[in-house]
């Protein structure tokens, strides 16, 4: 059975079981199957079988799941786009993905209603299953292609390692569907006939409602970024009395601080804490480790773990020579979980992907080392940073700043606190400036930039300079800028 058949199989066995809870909306497995079949047949009928992607634009609505499965059941990958993104960014993604159609929850509801049956052919093993867009250093998002085989390899590993109980789990969905951490909760949940519990944007903005909703969620497997858990931990009541069923916390997407793990283990004595690591280009996560008292005692910073079966981690120097144990180098991932590359960008693909012993390999740009057979993540080779788990290329923010009227030049630098990036500061030189105060000016620039970039990419602080400092070889002197913070 492939992954799609597995989900349909769950629907046939327990059609009344709840697949998704999001705010007041509830979706059963029966509805998910029936409606995704209807969407698939609509797509095949109206668009044929050209395999072009379907962009799905929404937030956490149950229709998102229907459209994802509807697309792949019609032999098309889907491109999830969160409505939190500004229109310019949405347009860029739709255009560069060559999407055949942009589906919204309203349309999906309508297409689900008329189950006109035509035979559809689902995506094949090596066909794209989803395409996720991430920040690209030149100011344009790039689409990472993930095949059904990549996804099956990843989910197969998760199911074996975690031994989720069949039909009995409730998975927390904190990450937006446009961020690949959500792939972990979504498909672990659907393939085990479990319930996906989405935390909507309104909840995250209103802590009072967030905690109330968590208390009623029945979550058994918590999947989030470490920052989200850290935020929740500020409330003392965030403990096993609030979430009595939680048995594991799975973290991925950014560095897990030992203090966060320690606090969680104290508050949730019945739960396990796991740390995981992997870029979108290698399908969500490639390494994992169970963080227990012994690991916490032994390591700080924490390791990101051991590699999944059939994949390999190599640590290489800049000449492509393998480094020995405990030597730092670039983390290379080799295996069946590695993406075929960036959509429509053979140039970018050739730079980051290569063949290695018959497998696809990806140069992560991450620095790390292997010690005691465990992988340790130690930062980036380039400027890329993670903020609350979101991957950001400062070059992306800079290019979009320079595109604004009155901006002559811009450099974007992360603000580091306790070794982790907290926010971005933009250093901007303007063509001409008016009399308004810096704060007003910054606010206006931020708003203009907000029409081009998602909120999580917006600099927190703007510093106005007559000219940006340069190094001897004519580049912006980022070190000097970072020091001035």
């Amino acid at each position, binding site marked *: 059975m492939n992954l799609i058949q597995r989900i349909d199989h769950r629907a046939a066995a327990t059609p009344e079981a709840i697949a998704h809870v999001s705010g007041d909306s509830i979706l059963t497995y029966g509805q998910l199957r029936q409606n995704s079949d209807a969407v698939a047949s609509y797509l095949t009928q109206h668009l044929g079988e050209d395999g072009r992607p379907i962009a799905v634009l929404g937030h956490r609505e149950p229709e998102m799941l229907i459209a994802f499965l509807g697309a792949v059941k019609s032999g098309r990958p889907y491109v999830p786009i969160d409505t939190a993104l500004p229109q310019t960014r949405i347009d860029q993604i739709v255009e560069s993905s060559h999407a055949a159609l942009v589906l919204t929850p309203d349309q999906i509801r309508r297409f689900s209603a008329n189950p006109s049956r035509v035979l559809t052919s689902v995506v094949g093993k090596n066909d794209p299953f989803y395409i996720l867009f991430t920040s690209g250093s030149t100011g344009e998002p790039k689409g990472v292609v993930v095949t059904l085989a990549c996804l099956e390899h990843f989910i197969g590993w998760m199911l074996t390692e975690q031994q989720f109980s069949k039909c009995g789990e409730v998975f927390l969905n904190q990450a937006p569907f446009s961020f690949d951490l959500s792939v972990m909760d979504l498909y672990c949940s659907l393939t085990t006939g479990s319930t996906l519990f989405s935390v909507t944007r309104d909840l995250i*903005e*209103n*802590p*009072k409602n967030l*905690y109330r909703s968590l208390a009623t969620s029945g979550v058994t497997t918590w999947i989030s970024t470490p920052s989200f858990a850290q*935020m929740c931990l500020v*409330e003392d*009541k965030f403990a096993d009395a609030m979430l009595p069923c939680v048995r594991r916390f799975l973290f991925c997407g950014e560095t897990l601080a030992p203090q966060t793990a320690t606090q969680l283990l104290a508050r949730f004595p019945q739960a396990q804490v796991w740390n995981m690591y992997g870029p979108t280009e290698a399908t969500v996560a490639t390494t994992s480790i169970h963080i227990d008292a012994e690991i916490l005692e032994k390591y700080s910073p924490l390791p990101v773990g051991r590699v999944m079966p059939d994949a390999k981690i190599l640590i290489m120097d800049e000449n492509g020579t393998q480094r020995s144990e405990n030597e730092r180098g670039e983390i290379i991932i080799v295996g069946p979980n590695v993406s075929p590359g960036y959509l429509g960008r053979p140039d970018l693909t050739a730079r980051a992907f290569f063949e290695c012993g018959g497998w696809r390999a990806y140069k992560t740009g991450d620095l790390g080392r292997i010690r005691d057979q465990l992988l340790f993540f130690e930062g980036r080779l380039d400027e890329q940073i993670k903020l609350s788990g979101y991957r950001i290329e400062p070059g992306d923010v800079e290019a979009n700043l320079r595109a604004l009227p009155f901006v002559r030049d811009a450099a974007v630098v992360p603000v580091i606190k306790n070794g982790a990036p907290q926010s971005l500061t933009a250093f901007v030189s303007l063509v001409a400036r008016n009399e308004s105060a810096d704060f007003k000016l910054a606010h206006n620039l*931020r708003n203009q930039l907000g029409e081009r970039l998602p909120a999580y990419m917006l600099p927190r602080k703007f510093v106005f300079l007559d000219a940006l400092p340069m190094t001897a070889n004519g580049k912006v002197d980022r070190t000097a800028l970072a020091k001035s913070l």
Partner: protein
Amino acid sequence: MIAEEFADKVLRLLASVGETDEVLTNLDLPLYDYQVLDSMRTVQLILMIEEQFGIKISAAEFERERWRTPRAVIADLEQRVRL
């Protein structure tokens, strides 16, 4: 601690969490509208207030309305101290 000193300390905390000195002079600045505060920063501020003043605020009972502006933050905290 006299009221003025207290207000000043609160504003400095706010300026440090929100990374802007604007809050020191503009007491009616809409903090959430101007993204001086967001969810993450609200909890950071809750933590810092506990550390500095020993005022315990439950994140689970917190509402944004109460911290709409720097003036509102000061008033809210003064009330909590008195209680």
